[in-house]
């Protein structure tokens, strides 16, 4: 056994790459409370202070501090950079300065040109000219798109597709760098390559994979070089906790240096790192305070990561998110929970470094998590509004004990799977299109199958449901085909070599489809079924509004009459998607998640039968529509919990805001109540909950006086943002959401 592994329980992980087994054999579940935690050191405070200053400057500069368009972002494009030179203990930045953003043109040169122009920079001529000869992912996609594909895209039936920028959602198992060292990973990749390239049939898949593996090997060599520029030799395994963090971070850093994927999670590193921490504590190598300091510095590095985005992109995904998602806790297949001291340390950074949206700390909730940890998480939610919860008991049976979360709510098996990200289609618009028989309600354009418009009403439910299904069927076929094109081209022109280098050479793939306007579609169909809905037409006979007479049940009140419609919509969507074959045999999955695109989707959707006005934002994710959940928090949570994760294995997102007063009269009871709410919700099989504990008046004040709240962090939809980083439109939508006030 290698000397760096002394003290670890050996297993097959020493012979073949198996981080999951290494963790299982070596981690120590921690049942205690938070009393062992250390505060911030003077050094940490100094570096944090520097970051605070930079964040203020970034905000003042309109959201982007500095852009460097002089070179293309590659692993070694920039010289080393530091937050406070001489003071960083975990080192490495994307560029040579914190918060400085570079360009990643291989996803799409068009978007880079827009970005650069928006920030008043100029693309060097040689880079600009280079793309006369180099095809980007974006170029490839548009060469293949049909007219109809472009049409559903511009009308807003499918929006946010990763066809002009990096797709993201890939999580390398960056822990492999720490456990095995880069040289071992290269050796394994070389073996894989030889095996694949020597197959009897060199079909497209084998040729493509062989080329990809070679690119991964090149990336691994580049990563070693990058580490060396910071003074580290990472060819061998990490020998202590500091190195384990540093090696893991270098591996992650390479990915965000050369890719600007929409969401680039870090994975599930805290319990892995704890194994090294425990060994060092036992051997007296490092103290608790030192280990906390390493963790603080690691997290601080993740907090200054940035991608260059366009204004148009920000309108879709507001708040400048990176989705550096870290999964914390969960339970192993042997029934032991995976909470370690390091799970606490990572959450403690929200005290040592203040509340922050990144990394996107995600507690993998199980009823088996130790009670003190549940309470600590609740406390962190109440104090910082910075963390989210996902149901490990639901995901573990499918994804095993070592999965992590891509972006907001999408589980992926570490090291063995990757995801093809697919944005979302607009369910509310599909219903309107069905009622109009194939005419877009906003533009009057004909799209999809053509049929008679629905009669003058009251609209018959069966008729409306059939129409919805006809157009859903049509759009889902198109949707799968669009995704196949996008990911074919992304693999071809913008392959994420530095992330894929930390995955198995032959990964399993998930194709993640999504829906928006979920509650609007459900409530609209409920209105048609339980009230009387009459269409109102414009002079061309296009239905542009509705007159709704009578009451109807609304999603979010634990009323099965409408909740069953919502459930049925989710089932029908995945059924339709599954009918169509996917690129590289990816497994179809579905999410009910909008990020902040619920605002944009709403903008592109006309008046709906539920009474929602044209242009009004949808509710985010699987949330009930704003203020329609009027029977209290439990009824609202119960409605969402009916959306079965087994139908929507890419996640069912619920963002929940509650006032501190509603949770209880004092701090202790508030913690207990929040634990009770999470317990009840997840025991009902629900998947995800973003928790905000705050008053609407606070957000209203922050809307008016942003300078008073530089660090105000809120959970929006599977991720958190600094409230100030949201556009005014997004801020208004967040303020308009239901705040459960209790009684």
């Amino acid at each position, binding site marked *: 056994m290698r000397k760096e592994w002394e003290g670890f329980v050996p297993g097959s992980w020493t012979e073949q790459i198996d981080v999951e087994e290494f963790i299982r054999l070596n981690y120590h579940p921690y049942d205690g409370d938070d009393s062992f935690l250390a505060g911030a050191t003077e050094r940490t405070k100094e570096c944090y202070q520097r970051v605070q200053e930079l964040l203020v400057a970034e905000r003042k500069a309109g959201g982007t501090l500095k852009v460097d368009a002089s070179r293309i972002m590659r692993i070694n494009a920039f010289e080393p950079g530091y937050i406070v030179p001489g003071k960083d203990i975990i080192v490495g930045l994307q560029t040579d300065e914190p918060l400085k953003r570079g360009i990643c043109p291989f996803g799409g040169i068009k978007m880079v040109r827009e970005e650069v122009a928006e920030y008043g920079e100029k693309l060097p001529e040689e880079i600009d000219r280079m793309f006369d000869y180099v095809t980007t992912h974006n170029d490839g996609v548009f060469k293949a798109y049909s007219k109809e594909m472009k049409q559903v895209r511009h009308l807003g039936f499918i929006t946010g597709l990763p066809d002009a920028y990096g797709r993201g959602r890939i999580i390398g198992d960056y822990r492999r760098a720490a456990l095995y060292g880069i040289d071992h990973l290269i050796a394994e990749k070389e073996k894989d390559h030889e095996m694949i390239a020597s197959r009897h049939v060199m079909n497209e898949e084998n040729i493509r994979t062989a080329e990809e593996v070679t690119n991964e090997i090149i990336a691994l060599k580049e990563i070693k070089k990058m580490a060396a520029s910071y003074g580290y030799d990472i060819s061998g395994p990490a020998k202590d906790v500091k190195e384990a963090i540093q090696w893991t971070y270098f591996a992650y850093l390479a990915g965000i240096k050369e890719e600007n994927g929409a969401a680039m999670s870090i994975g599930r590193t805290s319990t892995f790192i704890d194994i090294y921490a425990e060994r060092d504590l036992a051997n007296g190598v490092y103290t608790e305070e030192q280990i906390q300091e390493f963790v603080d510095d690691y997290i601080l590095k993740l907090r200054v990561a940035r991608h260059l985005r366009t204004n148009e992109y920000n309108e879709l995904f507001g708040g400048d998110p990176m989705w550096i998602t870290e999964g914390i806790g969960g339970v192993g297949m042997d029934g032991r929970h995976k909470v370690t001291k390091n799970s606490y340390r990572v959450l403690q950074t929200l005290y040592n470094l203040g509340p922050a949206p990144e990394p996107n700390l995600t507690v993998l909730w199980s009823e088996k998590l130790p009670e003190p940890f549940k309470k600590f998480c609740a406390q962190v939610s109440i104090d910082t509004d910075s963390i989210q919860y996902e149901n490990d008991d639901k995901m573990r049976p499918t994804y095993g004990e070592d999965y992590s979360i891509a972006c907001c709510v999408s589980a992926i098996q570490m090291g063995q799977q990757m995801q093809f990200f697919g944005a979302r289609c607009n369910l509310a618009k599909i219903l309107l299109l069905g009622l109009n028989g194939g005419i877009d309600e906003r533009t009057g354009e004909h799209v999809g199958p053509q049929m008679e418009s629905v009669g003058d009403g009251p609209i018959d439910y069966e008729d409306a449901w059939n129409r919805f299904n006809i157009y859903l069927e049509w759009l889902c076929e198109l949707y799968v085909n669009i995704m196949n094109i996008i990911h074919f081209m992304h693999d071809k022109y913008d392959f994420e070599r530095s992330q894929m280098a930390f995955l198995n050479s032959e990964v399993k793939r998930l194709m993640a489809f999504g829906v928006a306007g979920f509650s609007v579609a459900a409530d609209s169909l409920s209105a048609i079924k339980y009230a009387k809905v009459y269409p109102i037409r414009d002079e061309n006979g296009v239905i542009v509004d509705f007159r709704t007479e009578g009451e109807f049940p609304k999603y979010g009140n634990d009323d099965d009459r409408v909740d069953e419609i919502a459930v049925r919509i989710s089932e029908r969507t995945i059924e339709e998607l599954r009918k169509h074959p996917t690129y590289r045999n990816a497994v179809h999955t579905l999410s009910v998640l909008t990020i902040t695109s619920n605002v944009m989707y709403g903008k592109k959707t006309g008046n709906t039968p539920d009474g929602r006005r044209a242009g009004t934002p949808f509710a985010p994710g699987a949330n009930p529509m704003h203020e329609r959940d009027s*029977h209290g928090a439990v009824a609202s949570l119960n409605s969402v919990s009916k959306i079965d994760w087994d139908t929507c294995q890419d996640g069912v997102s619920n963002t929940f805001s509650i006032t501190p007063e509603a949770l209880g009269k*004092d701090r202790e009871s508030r913690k207990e109540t929040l634990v009770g709410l999470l317990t009840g919700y997840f025991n009902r099989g629900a998947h995800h909950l973003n928790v905000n504990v705050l008053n609407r008046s606070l957000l209203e004040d922050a809307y008016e006086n942003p300078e008073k709240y530089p660090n105000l962090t809120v959970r929006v939809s599977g991720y958190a943002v600094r409230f100030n980083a949201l556009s005014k439109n997004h801020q208004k939508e967040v303020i308009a959401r239901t705040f459960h006030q209790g009684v």
Partner: protein
Amino acid sequence: MKGRIHSIETFGAVDGPGIRTVFFMQGCPARCLYCHNPDSWDINRGEDIEIDEIVHWAVRGMPYYGSKGGVTFSGGEPLMQGEFLVEAMKALHETGINCAIDTSGTYLDCHSEEAIANCDLVLLDIKHPDPERFKIITAREQDTLFEIIDLINGYDKHVWIRNVVVPDINDTEADIEALNAFIRRIKHVDKVELLGYHTMAVDKYGKLGITYRLKGVPPMGGEKLNKLRELVCLPADAVSQVTIDKK
């Protein structure tokens, strides 16, 4: 059997222990100056509700109750519908759900005893220990409060005392001392909650066309309320694991 209900709150964390489903029953004989549900006074308003519906909503909350939570009947004055309450509580007990009654002590009839006997906890709002002040606040006589306390003691029921503190009405140290003395007559007081008067209901009065008699009285909170909370003492035989709510 049907009851009259004002509203249902599926998430109550401040009306008894744990997370609770709260049924706000319609109808109240009192006209408390600071009442924040004036729309619950008239028994003819509200909606009909069946026992089955009560059970239906309460069962939906069960995953959230944990060991402490359950159902609270509040109001209005729930004892005005004592017969319905008894049937509802029996049905809820069959499903293993515990029940609290949140009463103002201003109403009593032939069903009240059975209702008290069947509940698991009483939230008792002591409007004021002094009979004159009691009448000023509630427009009712204090006699019913004593009879209810007798019933509570007779059935050895545990009680959470609640008292809304209003500026210039009951916000002196002497008021709290009087409250301390008053609650000694209750056998099992587990908790005493001083609730600060708030003005959030003012708009409701406007909509209902009822004069709001505490116009201009500022909300109660902050340091002063915390100081008063320090003065609260539980009667000597109170159960030891429960602490006074001091925020």
